[in-house]
Structure formats: structure tokens, C-alpha cells
């Protein structure tokens, strides 16, 4: 029976989220949370409304120092902007295959690598882009005086993922060794990024008794946990959520049907067995994928298709955005709506900036931001950590362990 009494949900904790929309705008939504009843509101808006710059995919480099947001636009342009103040760091014009126009082969997925591939210590970042026709490119670029003149890697790694069909979803797993691609007419593939080889392809489940052949149509994917690249969850256009295990078999290990519209967004929870799914008619639900059981739906007047979900790495909140132009923040455990912000356009992506800290005094809030703009030196690290209210040293340490310089192993 549905809940008849109102569950007391905690008030919205302070968070900072960035959303992108079809007019190419990046909006920053914050809530301080200190004052009781502080509603989430848009604090900044970066970019000019221009539909040719509509954002297709976004990826955040969520780190303490200099967090960056990579934004892939419909025109084939990739912009890397700073999360703190919206400065454009890099602007890569065309990442498509030479000879094709960006309109014919739009970008589908973008991922900014946390670890540097090259030995250079200057500010550079590496990105993986995937287009609809399956052209994947890993490229690194370094910062130069003006964003438009970013020095590009002369020989980026690129290969084709699929022969026919359209790629609709791509993910890179946490350790950035493996990547996952799937789409319409394209079975889910897992590729090894160092060697650029396909290590695994899925097989469709056995045909039903009517022997009808429906082509594979994956609309969203995610890796299930941070440490294990072998398990991942894929959502199909036929409203099915499937769990695949590379080490077990090529057919899906567990399959779950949810309502009637395509599963447009999937995101995993930190505990490794819960996933949150959003579908084309705005229903958001949490599913225990080990058992294939629906844990519950998030009810909150969401009337448009959910395009993107994001789970906060620390707080128990989840953000959903979609075609009804609202950004909604939900509490994971009680499944209640914490806040909703109207953002006027169809939204395409949402990401959390988890290193947002609220300060007691109003004046000290911009201080961490100023410190970040100073070029990184060791003194600044200490200065920043002392100014942060919550000690995130533990978090920062685990990340610094991962930042080992990797050997250049692009060539086979």
C-alpha cells in the first residue's frame, strides 16, 4: 500500500550542482543549507543562450584542486571550464573523424580523465570522446595562453567501436582502464583502453517463444561499483534494466522490467548493489539489482523524461534533471523530494560538485574560490585544507594515491 503518512525527511543538505541544457547554458545551483528552509537556487549561469551550442554530454573532474567540467556541444565543440568560476580553460573545435561534419556524427559521450596520461606536469587534461557512429578518440591537450589555442596532442588515439548502428551511451570505469559502449543496434562492448581492444561483447537474451527479433537498443549504462569493472548495468529502450557480469557469462545475469518507456538514465549507488533508474516518462526508482527487486519509486510530480541522474559521492542525495526543465534533489533513503528548481530549458546533464563547503561567516565563502585561482603550489594545498570546514583530508589523500603518473602505453 502506498505511504499514507508523511515521512519526516531531513532538510536539504548543502550541495552544489551544475546542469547543462539545450541552449548551451551551464547553470550552477547551490543551497547553503545553514539557514533553515534555504531553498536551492541558481547562483550562476555561464554561457549565452544559443541552440547550436546545445550541450550533448558533460563530465566532471571532481577534485579538490581545480575541478573541471568538460562539456560537449552539438556542434562538435568541447569546452573545458573551471567549476569554480566558469573560466574557459580549453576549447577543442572538432573531435570528429576527419572528413565528417559534426552535424552528421554528433558526440554522444565525453569523459575527462583524472589521471594524466603524459608525464607533463603542466596543466593538461585528457579526454575520451565518443560519437554516434562509433568513433572514439582519446586526446590530451595542454593549456596555453588562450583557451582556443590549446595545444592538442599531435597523435590522439582513435578507433572505431562499432561498424553499424548508433552508439547511445558510453562510460569509463573508475580506474580508467576500461570503457563501455552500447547503443541502438550495438551490443554492449567493453574495451581495454590501454590496448584499445575489445575484451567482451554482450549477447542478447534468448529469443522469446514468438521468435521475434528485436534489435538491441541500449539507452543508458553504468558501471556498478568503483572497484570492479566487471559488473555493469544497462538500461534498454524496451524498459528493461539488465545486469551484466563479464566474468560470468555474455548473457545478462539479471534482468528487470520497469514500466513502459525507455530507461533513459542509470546511476549506481555507493553500496554496489542499488541502482537508480529514470525513464522516459519521468519515473525515478531505486532497484536492488542483485535480486532484481524494485525498492521503491520516487514520487514528486516529475512530469518529463529524466535525462540524467547524479549521485552525490558523500551526501545521501540524488539529483535528476530532464525535459520538464526542473532539477530535483531527492533523499535516497526516504525517497522524498528535497528540493526542485525550475531551470527554463530542457536539461541534458547534471553533475555534483562534491567539494563544495559552506562557511559560517558570509565573507569567508568566496575565500576557497580565490585560493583555487592561484596557480597550484604546495603552500596552497595546506592553506586550502585549513580553510575548509569539513576535513576532507581523508578524501583528498585517497585521491592523491590514485594520481600516480601512468606510463605512456598508447602504442600496442
Amino acid at each position: 500500500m502506498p505511504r499514507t503518512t508523511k515521512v519526516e525527511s531531513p532538510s536539504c543538505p548543502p550541495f552544489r550542482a551544475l546542469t547543462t541544457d539545450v541552449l548551451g547554458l551551464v547553470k550552477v545551483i547551490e543551497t547553503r543549507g545553514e539557514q533553515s528552509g534555504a531553498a536551492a537556487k541558481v547562483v550562476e549561469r555561464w554561457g549565452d543562450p544559443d541552440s547550436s551550442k546545445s550541450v550533448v554530454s558533460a563530465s566532471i573532474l571532481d577534485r579538490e584542486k581545480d575541478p573541471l567540467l568538460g562539456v560537449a556541444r552539438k556542434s562538435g565543440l568541447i569546452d573545458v571550464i573551471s567549476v569554480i568560476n566558469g573560466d574557459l580553460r580549453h576549447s577543442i573545435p572538432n573531435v570528429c573523424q576527419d572528413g565528417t561534419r559534426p552535424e552528421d556524427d554528433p558526440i554522444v559521450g565525453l569523459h575527462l580523465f583524472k589521471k594524466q596520461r603524459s608525464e607533463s606536469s603542466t596543466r593538461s587534461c585528457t579526454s575520451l570522446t565518443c560519437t554516434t557512429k562509433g568513433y572514439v578518440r582519446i586526446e590530451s591537450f595542454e593549456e596555453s595562453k588562450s583557451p582556443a589555442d590549446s595545444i592538442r596532442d599531435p597523435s590522439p588515439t582513435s578507433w572505431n567501436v562499432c561498424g553499424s548502428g548508433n552508439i547511445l551511451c558510453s562510460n569509463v570505469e573508475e580506474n580508467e582502464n576500461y570503457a563501455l559502449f552500447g547503443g541502438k543496434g550495438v551490443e554492449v562492448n567493453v574495451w581495454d583502453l590501454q590496448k584499445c581492444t575489445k575484451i567482451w561483447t554482450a549477447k542478447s537474451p534468448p529469443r522469446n517463444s514468438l521468435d521475434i527479433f528485436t534489435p538491441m537498443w541500449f539507452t543508458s549504462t553504468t558501471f556498478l561499483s568503483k572497484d570492479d569493472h566487471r559488473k555493469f548495468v544497462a538500461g534498454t529502450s524496451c524498459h528493461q534494466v539488465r545486469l551484466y557480469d563479464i566474468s560470468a557469462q555474455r548473457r545478462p545475469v539479471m534482468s528487470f522490467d520497469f514500466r513502459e518507456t525507455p530507461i533513459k538514465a542509470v546511476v549506481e549507488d555507493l553500496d554496489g548493489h542499488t541502482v537508480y533508474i529514470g525513464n522516459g516518462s519521468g519515473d525515478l526508482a531505486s532497484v536492488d539489482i542483485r535480486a532484481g527487486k524494485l525498492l521503491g519509486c520516487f514520487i514528486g510530480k516529475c512530469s518529463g523524461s529524466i535525462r540524467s541522474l547524479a549521485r552525490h559521492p558523500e551526501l545521501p542525495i540524488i539529483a535528476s534533471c530532464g525535459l520538464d526543465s526542473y532539477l530535483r534533489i531527492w533523499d535516497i533513503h526516504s525517497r522524498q523530494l528535497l528540493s526542485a528548481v525550475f531551470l527554463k530549458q530542457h536539461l541534458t546533464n547534471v553533475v555534483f560538485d562534491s567539494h563544495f563547503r559552506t562557511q559560517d561567516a558570509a565573507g569567508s565563502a568566496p575565500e576557497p574560490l580565490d585560493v583555487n585561482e592561484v596557480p597550484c603550489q604546495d603552500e596552497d594545498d595546506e592553506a586550502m585544507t585549513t580553510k575548509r570546514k569539513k576535513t576532507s583530508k581523508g578524501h583528498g589523500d585517497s585521491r592523491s594515491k590514485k594520481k600516480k603518473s601512468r606510463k605512456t602505453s598508447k602504442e600496442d
Partner: protein
Amino acid sequence: MATEQPKPATEDPKIDLFEDNDEFEEFILDDGFLADCLTLNIEREFSMNLDLDSITDEFYAVIILGSATEDSRQEKMKHNDTLLPSTVKNKERRSAILVKLKHQKKVEKRKNAKVREADEKRALELGEELPLKKIPRTIENTREIDDTICKPDDEELFAGNDADEFSSILKQDFTPKILITTSRFNSTRGPAFITDLLSVIPNAHYYKRGTYDLKKIVEYAKNKDFTSLIVVHTNRREPDALLIIGLPDGPTAHFKLSRLVLRKDLKNHGNPTSHEPELVLTNFSTRLGHRVGRMIQSLFPQVPNFRGRRVVTFHNQRDFIFFRHHRYIFETKESKQAESKGKNSKDGKEAKSKEKVIARLQECGPRFTMKLISLQHGTFDTKGGEYEWVHKPEMDTSRRRFFL
């Protein structure tokens, strides 16, 4: 202190009643079961957090006086002057009370209205300013505040408008060309409705449905350069739903049709001409309403012929869109008010005839009401498509919440 006070107050009536009314005493003291029930009732009310004083008073009152409910009702009556009809259990008496109450209210209302009118007349005659008219409270007045209402200075709105699917038609790059078809089974009133629609919307063509899939029809229409596709869906021999699909990749709006009155059923209807009509779209205030309004606007030509004196109205009220089609004509009317009062003219007012220009309307064409059920992004694809807006019952949280 608080506990001591009620006791002396209730000591006295207790003693009095025992002395005066033997019957009450018998009634209570013998019937321990009733006393237990009454204590249980009091305990239950106590657990509902009533304040202590009233409970202790009522407790003693109940046990001693012996008729709990009537007394509490009498106490209530002491507090309120009117008797709440819902507390009377007897249906006949209750309905009698209600009739009286209604009559009272009606009489009061008429009295107030008369007083108001008299005030206004007096103010008019004396040349004073009219007393302020009170604004009635309506559901539209008390509509819930919506974040999605379009503001007039929103540059994102304008940019969004430029970017949406209808902008090319609305900027007159293309002329609208509409394809009308039906669901597979057409009904009694369906064909008549379609002929009426063909006369309302200029440049509309009707094709029989046959057995084509709707997705295939969308493809064929795109090949033939249509800008919109309208599907009239019938259910139980009545046109029931309207699907408006923008082409090439426009949104799909699914409306529910109701209260359809065909032209031949209208009294004194007019016959529409073929001039381009004027379009009147009122009250589409939210972003969603704006989008739906633009979609409807893209069905009609953007250059109306004002000399044709033909107007098509889509009026949105409470999420229902009312469609009307009129022909109008301007006439000059002489208001003869001064002449009729000629003999009673006061203050030496000249008898002058004022000429007013009024527009007279004649309804032609069908009349119907639409309600948006869902707006889908992209052309018709119920299974693989994603919805921009779909009505869900959980969204009806209040009677004052509207989406268009």
C-alpha cells in the same frame, strides 16, 4: 495550584445534584457499565492531547450529570451561535436545519445586493465616486504560484523560442500545410467533424487512414512536405482525442476532446469564408502553455486577412482549451439612453445620442474543448519516445494548480 482549583469548583455541583435529583443519582450509580464507557471515552480524548482543564471539567460533568454528549453539544452551542448541521444525527431534522440555513443565506445575500445597488445608484446620481467593487474570489484568482510562468523579460525564453521546432514556420519561412487523418475506425460524427476542421484550418488536406501505421504516415507526410499532422481519434462513435504531430521532428501533443458541437447543430450558425483567420490565443501562461500555444499557432497561416473578419479562438482556462470560430462585423450602435430619460433629465444634461462601435459575433464552425494529456518530444513513438510532459495523478495536489 492548577490541580487544586478544579476540585472546589466541581465539589459544589456534585453535592447539589445528589441532593436535588435522585433520578440522576440512580441513573449513574447503578449503571457502572455506562460510567466505564464514559471514562473510556474521556481517556481516548485525553490521549488526543486536549488540555487538562477541559477534560477534568468534562469528566466530572459526565459522571455526575449523566448525559455526556448532549451537554457537550449544549456547551458547543453556547460557544457558537449557530448549530452545526453536521452534528445532528437525525436526517430529517438535519435537512430541515440545512434548508433554513440556506434560505437565511439567500435572503442575506439578496439584501446585501440591494444595499449595494442602492449605494451605487445614489453615488451615480450624486456624482460621487462609486463605492469600491469587491473582487470575487475565483479559482483562477487564487491559482498556486507557479515557477514556470513565463516572464516578459526572459531572454532564455526568447532564445528557446528561436530554437524550437516551430520557429521556422512562425517566422514565415514555410507555410503551414496540414494533413488530417483519423484512427482506423471512423465513426458517425467523425467525418462531419473532419469536414468542419477542413473549413477552419486553411491549407488542410484530408487523407483516409487505410491501414497504415502512424509512424509510416509520419514518414510519408515528411516526404510530401507537410508541416503538421492531425489525427482525429474516435472512441464509441464520437471523436475523442486529437493528436497533433509537428513535422519533421516536432513534438507530439495528445489532447482529449470533449463537448463537441458540430456546425450544423449550432443555432444561427454562419458559414465561414476562406479568408485567413485571425488567431486568438489567450491565457497560455506557463512555459508548457507557451509551447502548446506556439504549436497551435504553427497550424495557422501567420498573415491573417483582417478584411475577412474571421477569428479562431483558443482560450485556455484551468487547463482546458476552448475552441471557438466566429465571424464578426463592426456596427455602429446609437445608445439611446439620453433619449429615454429625456423627460427626467436632471441638471440640464443635453439629450445627445452617443455612437458606439461594437462588434457582433456570429459563431460558425465547430465548438469543442481540448485538454492536454501528454506532450512527447519527437514524433509519434509511444514506446520508444520520451515525454516532455505527461499528466500523472500525483501531480494533482491541489485544485488551484494548473499546468498550461
